[in-house]
C-alpha cells in the first residue's frame, strides 16, 4: 500500500483496515500524532487528508492510500512556524501538550477550509477572523488540561483577529 505523508512516499505492508494512526506511529515512525481513545471521540489523532481534518484512529489506511496526508510533523518546521503554532506559542496554550498536535491540526484545517470557502465565493475577499461560535462548533477535540480559553483565542488570532 502506498501512502504519501508530509510529501514523502511510503510503501507499507499492512492490513487494509489498520487505522492510519497506527500506520503513522509504528510503520512510519511519526509519533507526533497521538492515541487518546481509539473511537474517534477525542481528536488527539487528528491529521489532514487532502487538507481535511480526519481522526486517524478510525480512518482505515486503505481509504487514504494515494491521498495527501499531513501530520503535525509536516504542518511546519519551527522556522518559520505555521500561524497556528505561532499563535499557540504566543498564547502559551499547551499544558501537558499531549492533545495539542491533534488540536492544532484540527484548528489549521478549520482555518484553511474557512479561507478556501470564502475565496471560492469571492477571490478578492478579505477573510474575517473566525467568531467564537464558529470556533466552538468547528473544533470538537478534547483537552483534559482544559486549555480551551487559550485555544479559542489562539485560533482567532491565527485567523487574523487582533
Amino acid at each position: 500500500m502506498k501512502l504519501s505523508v508530509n510529501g514523502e512516499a511510503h510503501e507499507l505492508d499492512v492490513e487494509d483496515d489498520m487505522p492510519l494512526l497506527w500506520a503513522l506511529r509504528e510503520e512510519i515512525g511519526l509519533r507526533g500524532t497521538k492515541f487518546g481513545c481509539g473511537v474517534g471521540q477525542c481528536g488527539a489523532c487528528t491529521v489532514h487528508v487532502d487538507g481535511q481534518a480526519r481522526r486517524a484512529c478510525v480512518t482505515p489506511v486503505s481509504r487514504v492510500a494515494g491521498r495527501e496526508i499531513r501530520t503535525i510533523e509536516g504542518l511546519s518546521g519551527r522556522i518559520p512556524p505555521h500561524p497556528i503554532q505561532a499563535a499557540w506559542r504566543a498564547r502559551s496554550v499547551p499544558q501537558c501538550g499531549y492533545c495539542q498536535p491533534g488540536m492544532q491540526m484540527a484548528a489549521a484545517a478549520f482555518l484553511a477550509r474557512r479561507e478556501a470557502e470564502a475565496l471560492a465565493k469571492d477571490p478578492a475577499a478579505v477573510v474575517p477572523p473566525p467568531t467564537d461560535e464558529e470556533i466552538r462548533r468547528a473544533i470538537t477535540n478534547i483537552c483534559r488540561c482544559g486549555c480551551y480559553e487559550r485555544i479559542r483565542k489562539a485560533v482567532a488570532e491565527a485567523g487574523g483577529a487582533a
Partner: protein
Amino acid sequence: MLDRRTFLMSGLAVGGGLAVGLGTTVAFLGAHDRREHQREGMHGDAPLVALWIQIRENSSIHLLSPHTEMGQGANTGLAQIVAEELDVPLSSVVVRQAPADRAFTNGNVIQGFVFEDEALGGFFQKVLDSAFWFGGDLGAVQMTGGSTSVRFTGWRSMRRAAAGARSLLLAAAAAELGVPAAELVTGDARVAHAPSGRALTYGRLASAAAALPVPQDPPLRNPADYRHIGTSPERIDLADKVVGAPVYGIDRHVEGMKHVAVVGTRAIFGEVTAITNREEILARRGVEAVIIVQEGVAVMADNPWRAEQAARALVFTEKAPATAGLDSSALLDQMEATLDAGDRFSTVEERGDAAAALAGDGQVIEARYFVPFLAHATMETPNVSIWREGGKVHAAAGVQSPLPARLWVADKLGLAEEDVVFHPHTMGGGFGRKSAAGDDMFNFITQACTVFAAVDQPIKLVWSREMDLRFDRYRKQSVARFRGRVGADGRARAWLADSYGEVNIRPDVVTAYDIPHLRQRNVQEATFVPYAYWRSVEASIHCFFNECFIDELAHAAGHDPLDFRLDHLPTAHRLRGVLAAVRDMSGWTTGILPDGTAMGVAAYGLFGSFCAQVARVGLTNGRPKVHEAWCAVDCGTVIHPDAVIAQMEGGMIFGLTAALYGRIDLENGGVRQRNFNDYRMVRLADAPRLHVALVPDGSPPGGVGEVGVPHLAAAVANALAVLGDRPRRLPLIQ
C-alpha cells in the same frame, strides 16, 4: 524556616564545579511511632542527599528537578527561583529531570505537609506508605503531587540551596581576590569587586567554592529586588509542545520493541482462569504471545493495533472475585445508612454546642449531597516500556513518582533496585493517576512486568481508553448530611456536617466560615473500589458540600450569598480578598439576569491558597449551560503569573467536566463506563469564557495545580438554585 534537621550540603560536581543541595535525616519523623519503628528497622539515621544545583565550570547552571512535568509548568517556576537566588539570567539555568534515584528524592514534600499544615492525616500517611512500602524510608519519596513542587521543593529547599551556592561563590571570590566579601556584588553569573574593577565568573569560582564550608542559613534576596520571581518568561517546555516534539512515555521507542495490549476481566479483581481461543489468537497476523496477567489477558504483537484487535477477540473464562456482586448504588445505600446510624463518625471539628444550637429562632435547613466516583482519564493512557540493556532492566513511563515506579518494577521482576533503570517521561496528564499514592497504583506496570518476565523481549504496554476507565483508581463516591440554623438576625448559628467522605488535610475539609456552633464529623471506610487521589483530593468533595450548604443558609436568611459569605468570614481571612475581587470582576448580581442566566459563587481555600469563583449559568433545553466563569485566586507569592492563570483556567475546566458530566458507576463489581462517549468531557462547545485575576499577597507561595478545581461544581449548582430547583447531586447533567 526549615526544620533544623535539614541541612545544606555541597561538594564538587562531577567533572568539576559546584553542587549544592539539601540533605535531611529521617529522624524528623521521630514523633511518629510507626515511622520511627520502621526507620530503626531499615536505615538508621542515614542522611538523604539531594544535590539539586550544579554550577559547571562554563558557568552554566544545571537544576536537577525531582518533579515530573505533566502540564503544570513547575520546572519553569523552579528555574526562576534558582535564578533569582543565584542572581543569574534565567537563560543560564538548564533544568533537567532528576533520575529515579534515591539521591534525588524530595522528602521535603513530606516536611511541607508536616510543618506547614497542621493535620498529617491520610494524605501524609498515603504518601509515606508509598515510600515505606517500597524503600523503607523517606528516600523513596519522589513525587509530583499535592501542589507541592513550587511551594515546598522550590520555596523551601531550592531557594535555600541556591542562596547557599551564591554565598559559597561570594566566599570563594573573597578568598581569591583577597577582599572582604562585603565589598563584592553578584550579577549575570559573576562576582564583581567594584573598587578594583575585577570580576570572576561563577564557573571560574565553582570548584573552589565546593571546598568551602556551606552556610546553613544563607541570606535570601530581598523581594523588592526580585527580577525573575513574579514575571512570566516563556515556559521551558513550550517551544517543543507547539510543534508536537515532546516524547511522552507512549512515544518511547526501543529497537525491536513489541507491543502489548490488555483486555480486562469483567469485574475489578477478576482472575482469568483459562483462555478458550489461544491458538486462534496466536495464529493472527503479528501476534506473538498471549499471557494471563493481573485482572486480564495481555497480547503481544508487532504492532499495537494488531495486539489490541487480538486482545479484543480473546475468549476466556474468569473467576469472579468476592466483590463481583457489588455496585455503587448499593454502596451508596450502605453509606446513607451509615450516615443515618451515626455511630461510626470521627470528629473533624467541633466548637460550641452545635446540636443544641439547632434549636432557636429563625430557620433550620437540612440537606443531603452526593458526589460520585470519578476516573482521572489522562489524555495519555497508562503505558510503560520495559527492555534489557547493558546488563540491567530499563523501564520508561511518564509517572508522578519515578522512583517508586522503579522500585515497583524491581519488586515485580524480583530484581535488586540497582538492577533497574527507570526513565521518567513528560506526562500526557497526571491528575493523581500516575502517582504511587493510592491503591495498587501501578497496576499497568505489574501487567507489563508479567509479560516481560515471560517473553524477555523489549515491550511497550499501552492501555486502551477502556482499560484506563475500567481499571483506574477512583475519586471516592461520597455523601453528606447537613443541618444548620440561621437565626432571626440572619446569621448562621449552627452548622452540623456529617459526611461519608474523605478527610486528609483538615483545612481542605472544614468550612472557613465563622459559625459559633459547628460540628463536623466524617466516616471514612474502605470500600471495594480501588482508590487514588484525584486532582484537588478531598476539596473536590467537601467544597461542593460546604459551599452549597452555606448558599442554602444565605438563601434561607434572604441574603446575597456572596455578602453572606463575607459576613461570616473572620476579619483577616484571605478568602475575603478573593471574594471581593470576584464580586467586582464578575459584576456580581443576585436573581435572574435579563438573558435568563443567573450567577452562583463558591469560595474555598486548599493547598495553602485561597480562591473564589463565580459562574454565570443558563438552561438550554432544560440542561445547565455555563456561559462564563470568573476566578480570583490568592496563592501568596506568585512565581510565574501566567502559569498560575493557566492552572486556574485548566482547573476550572477539569472541575466543570466533573460537575456537569463526571460519574463512574460500578455494576457487578466492574466499571460501566467505557470511553469518552459515556465518560464525557467538556469541549470547546461547552467551555465557558474564563476570567482569572490574581489577588496579591506577600505570603509564601501556596499550591496552584489543584486550587482552581473544586469551586465550579458548587458555583454552578448555586446558580441553578436561582433558576429553579437546587441540585444536590453530581453530576448536574445525568
